[in-house]
């Protein structure tokens, strides 16, 4: 019985980590959908979210509910800026040869990486490379008892925020004109342009939405873990990227499911293995999934280019 309660707690912890991965993975999925390029700077948006949250908290000590909209706004702005700097210049080549060229696609991928390196180094200069503590009044670590299970309040906040954001995203994608545009551009960028969708604006919107999710994930993790650093975005970024691919690249439900799966399996794995080996579980899951489902769990069959 003791084991069962403990096990359940681990599952809940894992689900909250998984929700964070899911929020980031959705950003990856949305951006990959419209551009067909992996955004390597997504982890930096997450870090920016955490640091801006910390700055606001230390400077003004606002209530927690006021921090979230602010972080959302910062996320949106950084997403738009990122698109402007790292992605838009590479869309100046509109001829077919360039668009199909692998060199161009890899160049875009690396430009996002270069921007992420510069951003991270600048943050290192401003904030220093060490861990920064979050003021204890804002920490979300109070244990809450739900029956026999003790859950950190941060887990509950993460669950609630993720649920709200997923609901909002679902509404945006399936009930609004903007969402229709995003889905159309993901489906076929050229076709979307032919029917009169402003693809550039749609891409910018997608970056804003994806980065809002990423930045929120950043500040939530900061409050939950109690410490943030300029390097914090790397590991969850890679995990979210893995979750996106396991889910099949273009499927948001797939990305969310795989992110939760990764979070839970990591959390359970720490019970049986020393923490150094836990990443092995994540990547084994990835490789096994890809061996048996080469298009990811929820992916479509291969299209002819």
């Amino acid at each position, binding site marked *: 019985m003791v084991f069962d309660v403990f096990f359940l707690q681990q599952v809940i912890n894992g689900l909250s980590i998984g929700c964070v991965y899911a929020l980031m993975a959705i950003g990856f999925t949305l951006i990959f959908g419209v551009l067909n390029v992996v955004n390597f700077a997504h982890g930096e948006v997450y870090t920016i979210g955490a640091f801006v949250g910390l700055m606001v908290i230390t400077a003004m000590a606002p209530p927690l509910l006021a921090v979230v909209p602010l972080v959302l706004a910062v996320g949106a702005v950084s997403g738009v800026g990122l698109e402007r700097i790292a992605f838009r210049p590479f869309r100046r080549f509109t001829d077919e040869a360039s668009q199909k060229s*692998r060199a161009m696609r890899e160049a875009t991928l690396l430009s996002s990486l270069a921007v992420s390196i510069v951003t991270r180094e600048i943050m290192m200069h401003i904030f220093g490379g060490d861990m920064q503590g979050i003021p204890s009044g804002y920490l979300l670590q109070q244990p809450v008892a739900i029956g026999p299970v003790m859950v950190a309040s941060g887990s509950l906040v993460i669950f609630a925020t993720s649920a709200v954001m997923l609901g909002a995203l679902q509404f945006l994608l399936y009930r609004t004109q903007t969402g229709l545009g995003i889905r159309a551009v993901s489906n076929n960028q050229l076709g979307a342009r032919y029917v009169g969708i402003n693809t550039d604006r749609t891409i910018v919107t997608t970056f804003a939405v994806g980065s809002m999710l990423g930045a929120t994930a950043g500040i939530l993790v900061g409050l939950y873990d109690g410490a943030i650093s300029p390097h914090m975005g790397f590991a969850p970024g890679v995990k979210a990227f893995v979750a996106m691919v396991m889910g099949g690249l273009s499927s948001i439900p797939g990305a969310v499911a795989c992110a939760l799966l990764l979070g839970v399996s990591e959390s359970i794995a720490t019970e049986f293995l020393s923490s150094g080996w836990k990443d092995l579980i994540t990547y084994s899951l990835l490789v096994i999934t890809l061996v048996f489902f*080469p298009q990811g769990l929820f992916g479509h069959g291969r299209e002819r280019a």
Partner: protein
Amino acid sequence: MDVNVPDARLMPDTLAPPAAFSGRGRRFAWTLLLLAVAFGAVPAAIVGTGSSYLAQIAITTMIFVILSASLNHVTGTAGLLSIGHAAFYGIGAYAAALLSTRLGLPFIVTLPAAGLIAALFGFLVALPTMRLVSIYFAVATLGIGEMIYVVLLNWVDVTRGPMGIRGIPPIELFGWQADTLLSRYLAVAVIAVACVWVLHRLTHSYYGNALRALREDDQCADSMGINVERLKIESFVVATFFAGIAGALLAHTSAYIAPDNFRFMESILILAMVVVGGLGSLPGAVVGALFMIVLPEALRDIGDYRMIAVGATMFLSILLLPKGMLAEGTALGFVRRSFSRGWATIAGGTPVGWK
């Protein structure tokens, strides 16, 4: 380069050398120049300045030339985006380090053994992942690269974990020991030049054409009778073999290796070299490696802002030259003129393919 678009720079008539003799002369000019730089100018500079720092950079550059050229073979020429290349570099380095420190094997054994062990791992990785396409393959290599890193870091009994392996003997060959910096550089340079030459012969040939065909469209290449599966596996194994060789050179020249030398960011650095130099272009890969190693060192004076400058330069070079410093089309023409025998001809003297 897109095969559907005729590239004026590739059109043979503008390149055909006027006479066989001058063509021959030109052909050797570049080869001689490069050899003179690698074995004349750089050693002279090392001896002249007596600077161990310079020698160290020259050695690192040579090692990264091998890595970048081998990644270009699989990612640029065969079109399989691999972002776990550093892991195979790590396998080679650990194989060489363990074979020489634990078993006391000489360099002449550990060097090929490191390459073969890395290639064996590459083969095992390639078997299940080769049916993955595009980004799925990239992520699989990322995952496998991280798995290898985790094993290197945590399997303390064998790899000594984060402490790394110390006291790896320097390069020695039949009693000749590369114990001075100059001889160490020369040994590495000879091996690097040999590796690049092999990759050059593989890439700039009909075999290379087949790899480029499967990059552009593997389904189409398959239907034309190219054994796509096999070529993909071969190119991956070749690339991992050379990564292993580079690892062995690192182990024997630096005498100390730790898992952090072989992390994800290292793979990305190698990929950046290939892309900055020009994806699919072997001369570009060499230039990219030089650029990405020498640039941070040249910027050492600005200290803390160095990485910002490196990132910014990388961004600018990709922005201004998205196809690389030496784009594939240009590079193929250049190689044909300067390093190979030009065009083969069919009836009527129409130049096609490789001679």
